[in-house]
């Protein structure tokens, strides 16, 4: 699908011939995530859909306690320090952003009076600023009013490097000014296509100025409110034991009528994922359990009791295979996998092509992940099970053999193909995690049939995912030929996600392996596409560039999607809740309720 096709579809939506949903699905089919699709519509002058509310309760409270089970409990409750999703989810019981992402990738107003659009004057035509109108009459849990000063303060707080806020990236490059008591303007340094970052979603939760003003910068860790949140959210803080329990009671002055439904909320931590699933699906001790990294087979068995169900929420996280473009076995200037080298065998495009044919995504989905890992070849995929049409999954051992044979890789006496004395022997690493080891085995087996010898290596997760510069086994050093892990796409915009393919982002000794381009792929074409997405204000053209960038990487076999990693949760039969793959699990907590 090219730019003109997308424009044609937008025109249809405007004319009312195509539903928003239809448009979003068409976009997802070509690999554009729903949030981006939503933004395409917005900037093309189609207002964001505000889906009809399914909230039924007609009065506040009366729902009894809401019991949430997070098998890793929150360890801190200041949203600006909340690195882990568990901490963000915990903070979200009490704090709210201006707007949240719903499951379809549309913005849903929380503390904003309305979602900014070109039509309501919120979005500047030149893409240089966005103006947010705040909801009036909102109070913090301690009774003080919520105003534009609080919003501006959050920007000052987060952008200060001495505060060391996890959210700094969303705030350091913007300028926030107060227009009036209930209006703020976010100005960008350059035209910014993805404007819904600061004050939105996981990194947009707002803390009160009057309680944090004295604790900005280096003093940030001493704020008493870090441990006793005072927010605007549906529940008010009651008690917090890090790693174990967070409790809250309904906010009697919540700014939305008839909400929340539950009288109190508790988020219990600890234990393991399987027993968390049991506590919801089998015994019903809890109402909701989060992040169930459990084999689908077990989940299905637990579900049979009928007390609850498992929900799979699509997002952007992807389990993928990376092929090293540099030589991991030669040391140059104190580093292996140096940019100055080229991989001895993987640099042959025919070898990469053959390897791609040996990855059996379908079997990996069927035998390992089930519902919790739909197969895909894309690195960037939409919040849906639809796969991009441009990158069909092809598993074909014969074809792989054929390609290698034609390219001159001949089988030796040991059954391993070689050419010019170089053998097709690869080391394939990942973290220790049962599904990953099973996936490794499936790929190794197929490769063997094509005369490629793969040695499997598994590294303890705490080492593999660490940033320890002294350790050779981290995923960013990538001192092997192949590796596999899941990269998360917490933000709905693919901007940071696609840094994986930018030349200057290559992980090297010089940047302490903190670059985001792990394969070290150097492609002028990819760089040009990425630059286009950065500068392009027109979301349609921008989306087209992202798709092209994804296709370029996939079709050159730099990386290969294996399975999507959606969020898996369990809920009791009566609980109604909307979980968004683009925001925290608890982002819509105010609207949760139980059927009578």
């Amino acid at each position, binding site marked *: 699908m090219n730019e003109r096709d997308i424009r044609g579809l937008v025109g249809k939506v405007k004319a009312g011939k195509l539903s928003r949903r239809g448009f979003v699905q068409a976009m997802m089919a070509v690999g554009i995530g729903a949030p981006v699709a939503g933004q395409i519509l917005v900037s093309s002058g189609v207002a964001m859909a505000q889906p009809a509310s399914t909230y039924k309760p007609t009065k506040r409270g009366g729902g009894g306690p809401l019991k949430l089970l997070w098998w890793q409990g929150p360890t801190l409750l200041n949203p600006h320090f909340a690195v882990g999703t568990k901490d963000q989810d915990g903070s979200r019981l009490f704090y709210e952003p201006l707007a949240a992402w719903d499951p379809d990738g549309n913005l849903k107003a929380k503390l904003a009076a309305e979602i900014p659009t070109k039509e309501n004057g919120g979005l500047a035509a030149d893409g240089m600023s966005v103006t947010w109108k705040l909801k009036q009459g909102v109070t913090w849990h301690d009774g003080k009013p919520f105003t534009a000063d609080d919003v501006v303060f959050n920007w000052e707080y987060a952008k200060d490097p001495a505060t060391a806020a996890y959210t700094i*990236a969303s705030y*350091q490059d913007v300028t926030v000014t107060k227009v009036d008591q209930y209006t703020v303007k976010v100005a960008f340094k350059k035209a910014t296509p993805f404007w819904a970052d600061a004050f939105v979603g996981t990194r947009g939760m707002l803390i009160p100025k009057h309680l944090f003003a004295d604790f900005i910068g*280096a003093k940030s860790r001493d704020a008493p409110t870090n441990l006793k949140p005072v927010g605007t959210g549906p529940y008010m803080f009651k008690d917090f034991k*890090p790693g174990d329990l967070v409790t809250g009671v309904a906010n009697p002055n919540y700014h939305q009528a008839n909400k929340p439904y539950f009288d109190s909320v508790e988020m219990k931590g600890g234990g393991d994922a399987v*027993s968390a699933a049991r506590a919801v699906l089998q015994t019903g001790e809890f109402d909701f359990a989060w992040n169930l990294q459990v084999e689908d087979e077990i989940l299905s068995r637990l579900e049979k009791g009928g007390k609850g169900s498992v929900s799979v929420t699509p997002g952007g996280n992807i389990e993928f295979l990376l092929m090293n473009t540099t030589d991991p076995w030669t040391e140059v200037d104190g580093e292996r996998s140096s940019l100055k080298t080229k991989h001895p065998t993987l640099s042959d495009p025919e070898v990469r092509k053959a390897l791609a044919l040996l990855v059996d995504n379908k079997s990996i989905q069927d035998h390992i992940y089930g519902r919790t890992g739909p197969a895909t070849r894309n690195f960037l995929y939409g919040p849906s099970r639809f796969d991009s049409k441009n990158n069909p999954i092809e598993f074909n051992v014969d074809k792989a053999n054929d390609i290698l044979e034609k390219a001159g890789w001949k089988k030796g006496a040991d059954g391993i193909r070689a050419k010019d004395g170089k053998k097709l022997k690869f080391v394939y690493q990942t973290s220790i995690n049962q599904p990953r080891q099973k996936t490794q085995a499936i790929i190794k087996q197929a490769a063997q049939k094509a005369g490629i010898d793969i040695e499997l290596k598994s590294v303890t997760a705490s080492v593999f995912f660490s940033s320890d510069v002294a350790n050779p086994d981290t995923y960013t050093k990538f001192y092997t030929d192949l590796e596999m892990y899941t990269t998360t796409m917490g933000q709905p915009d693919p901007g940071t996600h696609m840094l994986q393919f930018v030349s200057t982002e290559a992980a090297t000794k010089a940047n302490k392996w903190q670059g985001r381009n792990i394969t070290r792929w150097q492609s002028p074409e990819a760089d040009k596409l990425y630059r286009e997405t950065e500068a392009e204000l027109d979301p349609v053209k921008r989306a087209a560039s992202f798709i092209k960038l994804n296709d370029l990487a996939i079709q050159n076999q730099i990386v290969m999607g294996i399975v999507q990693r959606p969020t898996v949760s369990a809920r009791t039969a009566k609980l109604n809740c909307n979980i968004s793959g683009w925001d925290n699990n608890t982002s819509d907590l105010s609207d949760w309720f139980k059927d009578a």
Partner: protein
Amino acid sequence: MQVHRVSRQYVIRKLLIMIPSLLGISIVLFALLAMAPGDPFDELATNPAVPPEVRAALRAKFGLDDPIWMRYWHWLFALMQGDWGFSFVSRMDVSTLIMQRLPVTLVVIGASQILAIVIAIPVGVLAATRPYSLFDQIANTFAFIGFSLPTFFTGLVLILVFSIQLDWLPFVYRADITATGWAFYWEHIKQSIMPVTVLGLFQGAALVRFVRSSVLDVIRLDYVTTARSKGIGERKVITRHVVRTALIPVVTLVALQMPIVFSGAIVTEQIFRVPGIGSLLITSMLSNDTPVVMGVTFVSACLVVVFNLIADILYGWLDPRIAFR
């Protein structure tokens, strides 16, 4: 009185020896933790949305870039002033974190120790007085099964039977029971039954064997025969003469096990989600929260040293034949 004076000197000397040994322990612990792989702010490094400066600022703020000896010195100096350190992960005082977990740990692990003792002493004594009888055989078999089965296995079996099949007991331990009055205690007892049973039986099983062999050792001694020949009833011989002597080593064993009451039971706490010190330790280890790990392990080390001393003293006090020098 003679004994008393001597033991005071002994205690003072032992207390003085404690200081260098605790220092040594703390150095080893600190060095091990400092040299272990992993970084509390790793999650930031792997997150594409967080610039590296944030991590650098945090490392500087928490003094992670200082050399190890300097960090150790800071830690020791703060400890002398009663400051246990500051958690990297939760951004709160280590002492607060430990105090939050302590009551539950003491109640659950303490109850399981009591259960172990209450079961082990009568069973062990009875088994020893009738060696190789049917009762002895059964007791022995159960003791063997008890300490051969790991707690994670018995825990899961109990959960499957009592929570999932019968639906009698909850398997998630909650420290925040909202009920009041009798209901409050009932809820607490209900949720404690399984973890306490698992731990109590495990420890009780080992203790049964110990009590039995200790009683068997004593029952053959001449003074017991003398007591019997004086015509004292069998029950009185056992309770007054045998058990009193036989329990001396048992008392010291129990004293030596007391530090466990503090440090919790990592596996059992994880299974039943008991928010005790053990689960705090394991989550802190997994998130590389070294100040908390250091705090918990060092407190445990102190308790082991202190209870060793107490066991020594108790032993001498109970058994005057042992001289302090």
